[in-house]
């Protein structure tokens, strides 16, 4: 029995994503057959550079969400556990370690599996898990690993020349590693062109973020959790830019026509943290009560790219990277950020996901919840792993959601 776990989407543009994703994975397998170099990457590895050097990138966290959304994670996680990665380990990593080390024990992998890697690329600053996970894969697969580092910048955007210079040199090291692996020379012109597209796309995404403030909501998180995909995995391509142009047009159309997601919008919710990929229908759950999950903590573009484009594309990337942080890093910044979002997006209540295996986000949730309640904003904490559905109790989660809705409706 196939059970649909994906969220119900309302925008026609979002519906293009599954096709894009499928053809992206098919393309990676095809590229590999044709002898193109394949890199397994963590998020925040700049795919524009790889693309400019004709290297095929495969982003493992994304593949992990694909597995999880098909409710196959438990099989993959269990395989990862048999090779010694405990349940304390990030659900994504456990799955992929299962895939890498115990392939005979995992279920049939989605999209026909992954193209085998020639090398691995990981960023060191998002979390400890990624680094440990990629290092372990590099050792067990016997494939080279390059670590890309950057300052942590807990205070947010930095104007320090030392920080920018360090990232720039790190990016040049990445390029040097790729040149060595592929035997081809990096051409700045190719990257410059992609950077220009990335910048334009980022402006469009900023505009989309602004439009999502409208009441009734023109686009909820049920759509955004999917619609964000091209920006993460097709960055710097015209395909990506065109997608967001169409999405922007559709949002404008909905706002002009006052078309919301639910017939009569009674309350608006924000989702903080990673959703539970094996039951994305949960995002739609409040819609039956006139509610809408109108915003998620991740995919809000907070500002336009600041510095003007530098002629040297690597320098340009470095400057953009230090001057702009996608997520706030300290708890103080996170509290400010969520309170600001609640205000700007007319949010009535916040659902916070507690994923114990994603320590980086998990650690802040209690204090965020406290800060919101102190401001009189109702909250609900839900503790489940983001990928491993064995930890999920649907009945318990829905009881909590029902009580939360009762609280919001009583307040409305």
């Amino acid at each position, binding site marked *: 029995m196939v059970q649909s776990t994906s969220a119900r989407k309302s925008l026609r543009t979002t519906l293009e994503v599954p096709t894009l994703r499928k053809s992206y994975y098919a393309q990676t397998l095809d590229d590999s057959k044709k002898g193109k170099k394949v890199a397994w990457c963590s998020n925040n590895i700049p795919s524009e550079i790889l693309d400019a050097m004709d290297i095929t990138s495969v982003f493992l966290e994304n593949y992990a969400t694909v597995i999880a959304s098909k409710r196959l994670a438990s099989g993959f996680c269990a395989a990862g556990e048999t090779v010694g990665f405990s349940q304390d380990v990030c659900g994504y990593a456990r799955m992929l370690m299962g895939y890498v080390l115990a392939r005979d024990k995992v279920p049939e992998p989605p999209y026909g599996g992954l193209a085998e890697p020639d090398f691995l690329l990981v960023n060191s600053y998002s979390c400890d898990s990624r680094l440990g996970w990629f290092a372990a894969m590099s050792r067990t697969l016997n494939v080279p690993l390059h670590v890309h580092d950057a300052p942590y910048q807990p205070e947010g955007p930095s104007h320090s020349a030392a920080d920018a210079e360090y990232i720039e040199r790190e990016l040049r090291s990445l390029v040097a590693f790729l040149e060595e692996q592929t035997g081809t020379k990096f051409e700045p012109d190719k990257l410059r062109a992609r950077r220009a597209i990335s910048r334009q796309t980022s402006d469009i995404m900023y505009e989309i973020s602004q439009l999502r403030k409208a009441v009734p909501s023109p686009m909820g998180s049920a759509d955004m959790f999917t619609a964000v995909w091209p920006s993460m995995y097709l960055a710097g391509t015209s395909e990506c830019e065109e997608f967001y142009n169409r999405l922007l047009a559709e949002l404008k159309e909905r706002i002009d026509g006052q078309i919301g997601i639910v017939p009569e919008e009674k309350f608006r919710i924000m989702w903080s943290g990673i959703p539970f990929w094996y039951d994305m229908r949960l995002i739609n759950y409040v819609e039956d009560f006139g509610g809408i999950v109108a915003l998620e903590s991740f995919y809000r573009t907070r500002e336009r790219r600041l510095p003007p484009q530098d002629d040297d594309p690597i320098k340009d990337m470095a400057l953009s990277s230090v001057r702009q942080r996608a997520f706030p890093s300290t708890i103080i910044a996170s509290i400010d950020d969520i309170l600001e979002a609640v205000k700007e997006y007319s949010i009535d209540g916040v659902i916070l996901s507690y994923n114990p295996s994603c320590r980086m986000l998990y650690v802040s949730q209690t204090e965020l919840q406290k800060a919101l309640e102190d401001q009189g904003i109702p909250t609900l904490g839900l503790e489940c792993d983001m990928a491993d559905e064995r930890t999920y109790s649907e009945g*318990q989660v829905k*009881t909590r959601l029902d*009580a939360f809705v*009762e609280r919001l409706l009583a307040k409305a």
Partner: protein
Amino acid sequence: MITAGVDIGSSTSKAVILDDRQILSYSIISTSFESETSARKAVDQALSKVGQISQEDIRWIIATGYGRVIVTFANETVTELSCHARGANWLFPSVRTVLDMGGQDCKAIKCDDRGNLLNFVMNDKCAAGTGRFLEVMARVTELYLEDIGEFSLQADEVIKISSTCAVFGKSEVASLLRQGKKKTDILAGLHTAISNRVYTLLRRVGITPDFAITGGIAKNIGVVRRLEERSGLKVLLPDEPQIVGALGAALFAQDKLSNQ
């Protein structure tokens, strides 16, 4: 006006029948596999205690608890969080904080002067403060669940126990038993550990007097005493703490009818 509230919990099902604002009768039975059957049995049993009236006389039925959505004969459902707040506040109008300790869940609930749900915090995956945890511990110490609270108060010393997780707690207790520690002292340690964990939930929701405990574990005097010590507050205990959710549901049903 006769209404009923039926609360289908993970281990027990409860029903309360109200005539206006007066409790006519109630029942508590074990939850079987089928929530619907349990619900019907609970209501039938409560009805049988009254005589004269039958199910047709019940003007409105509200179901609550885990199994609430499966109770097809109910007119409406409300979550147990709202019901416990309403029920406890009706029994003790001064109550603003309710701790509901049931079979699977432990909830700290805040309500206003009319028993409206203001906020709640629930236990995480950890089973501390739930009936399930105490059941496991009763089994490991080979005692009856009903007795362990009383036993824990007869301790000479309180043995330190750190794990309130059912899995780790079990092995910790087993190892203490192997070392020849007294059951009463181990139980004192366990009850202290649970109370400490539960107290954290209360602090998170913000504990405002008066304070009542509902749910099956309210019958465990060991937990109640230690929570009183820890919070420095007198705990208000309903005569029958298990039916507070069902009572709240029946009260919501009364509200419904009087609003019509």
